[in-house]
């Protein structure tokens, strides 16, 4: 019976994952998967001969409290790092299960084939743990976002993986706990050194890959304790996570190997600001007039809008323009902001109608027929050097071709570069006006002025 209920839970996971991939059904998919998980946990509790209820209940209570608090408290802008942290905890759990089970059964007595799966679970789980927390640190700004490393990082890591393989073999044939602990330590090091040299911009890819790993670790733990729920659930996430990883890196126009081993964006971290004398500045009132007499306006939001929390003010400006008969749309670049879907979430929060959001392919043909493009705190995603400058670190990334519009207004605080740490030729074009200000303040001013012109 237990097995069949586990199967039902697995079916709920499958249906949940499937629904999570479509906009309309995504939320119900998440609920379905959560129901499956609740079922699996209840079945386990009923089925187990629990010796130490205290341990079980304390663990469940502590985990629920911490998880719920983090999930509710965190800022929208910090969600990607939160996912990374949760993922790290999952990896840790799988490694711990394998360790505890080996300890309980006795490292001397477990058969070699169980040893193999235990070793896999410990190694993959530990890599997931440390790798996820390095990703967390990079996104939180605790660690510098730029790639950290030296020439031989890849070689050193390859060497460490070799050491891990030797230690793992020792664990399988040796019959003592020592190599298991050692393996966990080496694997933690591999996770740290593997993720440090990857730039913060690529963290979504890394987190997704580590998510796939945490699935594999769970499946391996399932083999150790002969539990079909872990094997099915783990294999599902391992495979689905891998496919998702490819899709995410494709969306960023990078190959997975390139993300992992190439130290993309070794830029100077801070980056220098460009030459302020070479740009055309504009005041809020200048921009209000330009906008007020336009026929069509496209807004390009970026990370700066998120930082300034300017989405509501932006919507107010759009309302004011629409009241004057101006057509307003929003062009959303797939990697604008700091996580996939970042802009969509913020604009939805400010009640911007879904129909006005255009993606890359919809908006690029429109710019040439657009009177004014307003770039709000975006930078890399509108950098024309991605099209032309083969030496640029973002060369080849598809960008929003805003420079084709009649007039471009850029709202940002200075000429400082964005995430990739590079200057942006857009700012110096003849048809570009720079409005240097915090996005929220500038837009609030615009909302007032547009009504008056």
């Amino acid at each position, binding site marked *: 019976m237990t097995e069949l209920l586990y199967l039902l839970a697995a079916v709920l996971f499958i249906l949940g994952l499937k629904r999570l991939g479509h906009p309309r059904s995504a939320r119900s998919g998440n609920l379905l998967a959560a129901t499956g998980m609740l079922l699996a946990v209840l079945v386990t509790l009923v089925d187990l001969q629990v010796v130490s209820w205290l341990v079980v209940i304390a663990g469940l209570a502590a985990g*629920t409290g911490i*998880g719920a608090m983090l999930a509710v408290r965190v800022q929208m802008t910090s969600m990607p790092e939160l996912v990374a942290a949760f993922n790290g905890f999952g990896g840790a759990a799988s490694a*711990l*299960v394998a360790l505890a089970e080996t300890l309980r059964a006795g490292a001397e007595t477990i058969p070699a084939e169980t040893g193999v799966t235990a070793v896999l679970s410990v190694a993959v789980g530990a890599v997931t743990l440390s790798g996820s927390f390095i990703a967390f640190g990079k996104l939180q700004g605790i660690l510098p976002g730029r790639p950290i490393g030296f020439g031989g990082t890849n070689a050193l890591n390859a060497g460490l993986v070799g050491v891990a393989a030797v230690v793992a073999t020792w664990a399988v044939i040796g019959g003592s706990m020592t190599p298991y602990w050692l393996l966990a330590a080496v694997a933690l090091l591999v996770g740290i050194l593997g993720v440090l040299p990857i730039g913060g911009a690529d963290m979504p890819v890394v987190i997704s890959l580590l998510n796939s790993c945490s699935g594999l670790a769970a499946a391996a733990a399932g083999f150790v304790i002969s539990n079909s729920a*872990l094997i099915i659930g783990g294999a*599902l996430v391992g495979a689905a996570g891998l496919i998702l990883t490819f899709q995410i890196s494709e969306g960023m126009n990078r190959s997975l190997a390139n993300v992992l081993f190439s130290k993309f964006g070794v830029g100077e971290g801070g980056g220098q600001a460009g030459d302020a004398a070479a740009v055309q500045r504009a005041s809020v009132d200048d921009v209000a007039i330009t906008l007020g007499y336009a026929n069509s306006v496209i807004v390009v939001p970026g990370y700066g809008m998120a930082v300034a929390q300017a989405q509501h003010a932006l919507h107010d400006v759009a309302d004011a323009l629409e009241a004057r008969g101006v057509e307003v749309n929003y062009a959303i670049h797939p990697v604008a902001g700091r996580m996939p*879907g970042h802009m969509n979430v913020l604009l939805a929060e400010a009640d911007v109608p879904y129909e006005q959001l255009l993606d890359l392919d919809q908006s690029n043909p429109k710019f040439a027929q657009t009177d004014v493009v307003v770039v709000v705190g975006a930078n890399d995603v509108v950098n024309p050097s991605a099209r032309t400058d083969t030496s640029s670190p973002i060369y080849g990334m598809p960008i929003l071709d805003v420079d084709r519009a009649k007039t471009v207004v850029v709202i940002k605080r200075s000429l400082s570069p964005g995430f990739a740490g590079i200057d942006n030729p857009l700012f110096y074009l003849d048809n570009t006006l720079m409005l240097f200000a915090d996005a929220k303040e500038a837009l609030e001013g615009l909302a007032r002025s547009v009504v008056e012109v």
Partner: protein
Amino acid sequence: MSEALIIGIVVFVLAAFVGFEVITKVPPTLHTPLMSGANAISGITLVGALATAAAGAGALASFLGFLAVTTATINVVGGFMVTDRMLGMFRKKPK
């Protein structure tokens, strides 16, 4: 190879195929929530953690079991909640 291992492999391979096939072209907007939801599912290791913690074999194993249950529960509860929160923001609030 033991019977249990072989069955495990059969089940693993089939489930992996399902995982591969179930994710089709996902719009970029959903990448983050999907990742987050899948991550919560990988917290299924909680079931294993419960089994280990319940067994209560010695102080160290119990402690590891406790840690495993706690971390896995964080993963599960936090994961599903934060995914729901993210997805909730995609929906227009009724005014």
